[in-house]
């Protein structure tokens, strides 16, 4: 039950993009095409889960025991940056097809604040490791759903003649705003 609450909250009620404002840049940057948004969501899920596990271990077995919590930001970002590198190298060796699919999105992860944000939120919420993993995956799914919906809307808008002043980014934001309005309907679902 507790996990279900975490999942529904992260996906619908507090959607990472539409309510928490994390990962906006990739949300805007790769949402032009449905196909790339699928690849991006996959990469996010992959990295977000691993990053949450590793940072959780570091937080609970290094930073807290040695009272080094103030180094959280700097250690987390370094961990994430090197993790992304490693994932890239390992994927290339172990699963070339997966690397093909996710490859171009991986470098973007380092500057994706959704990854770091979820890692920090996991610590702030005092989740245990399992809860943290579920939280990370659910957030990645929430990211994926928002991205998928949004990219198909944008692909659709590309075929129409949006007025000049609104074309491109402005109308994308307005559409995202209406999407966020619609997501408010999920309020109180848990």
């Amino acid at each position, binding site marked *: 039950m507790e996990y279900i609450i975490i999942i529904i909250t992260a996906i619908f009620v507090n959607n990472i993009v539409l309510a928490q404002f994390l990962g906006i840049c990739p949300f805007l940057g790769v949402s032009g095409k449905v196909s790339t948004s699928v690849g991006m969501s996959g990469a996010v899920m992959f990295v977000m889960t691993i990053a949450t596990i590793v940072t959780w271990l570091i937080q609970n077995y290094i930073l807290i025991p040695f009272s080094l919590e*103030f*180094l959280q930001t*700097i250690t987390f970002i370094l961990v994430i940056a090197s993790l992304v590198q490693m994932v890239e190298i390992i994927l290339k060796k172990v699963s070339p097809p997966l690397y093909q699919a996710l490859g171009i999105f991986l470098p973007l992860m380092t500057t994706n604040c959704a990854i770091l944000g979820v890692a920090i939120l996991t610590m702030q919420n005092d989740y245990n490791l399992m809860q943290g993993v579920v939280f990370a995956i659910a957030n990645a799914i929430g990211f994926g759903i928002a991205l998928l919906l949004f990219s198909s809307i944008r692909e659709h808008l590309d075929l129409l003649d949006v007025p000049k002043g609104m074309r491109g980014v402005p109308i994308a934001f307005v559409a995202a705003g209406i999407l966020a309005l619609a997501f408010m309907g999920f309020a*109180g679902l848990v």
Partner: protein
Amino acid sequence: MSKQKKPESTFPNMVLALFLVTMIAGLALGGVYVVTKEPIAAAKKAKLENALGKVLPEFDTIKNKKVPAYNGKDSLVFYTAYKSGSKVGTAVKTYTEKGYSGRFEIMVGFTPDNRIENTAVLNHAETPGLGDKIDKSKSDWSKQFNGKNPEQFQLKVKKDGGDVDAITAATISSRAFCDATKRAYETYEKEGGVK
């Protein structure tokens, strides 16, 4: 432009550079940490004392202990206040999960005769303009609890058969506030009130 030669990317060079950068950064951070340690602790303490001061009568010493809540999973923190060695009240840091935007925490102060001295919202994410009226800085709504003894004053909104006037269009937040207060009171009761 800069025709200056950069160090080659040889392995020793890279390690050395990174090491130096990290070293310096680490030292700088350590320094700042030491400098800010005191103010940060002071700020945290000030915040707590500020809250305690709001919900309790004047005091000079505080003792705190953790007490398991009478329901719900978390434990509550009791701050017992003394003035010149005698108890003047107990503040209970309590919570609710039923807010419009989930969990929020409040502090409830009880006088030795089991009345609510005052309440203070510690943190919340309720909607600005609606649910945030539970906070004293936004509205006087929560003043209706002051001086009430929960034995006589049903900690429920009127719609649910209690004595609390709900905030217009924010019944959920009002209910949640009652939930947190009730949790504090029942636990406080179970602990035997101000012994």
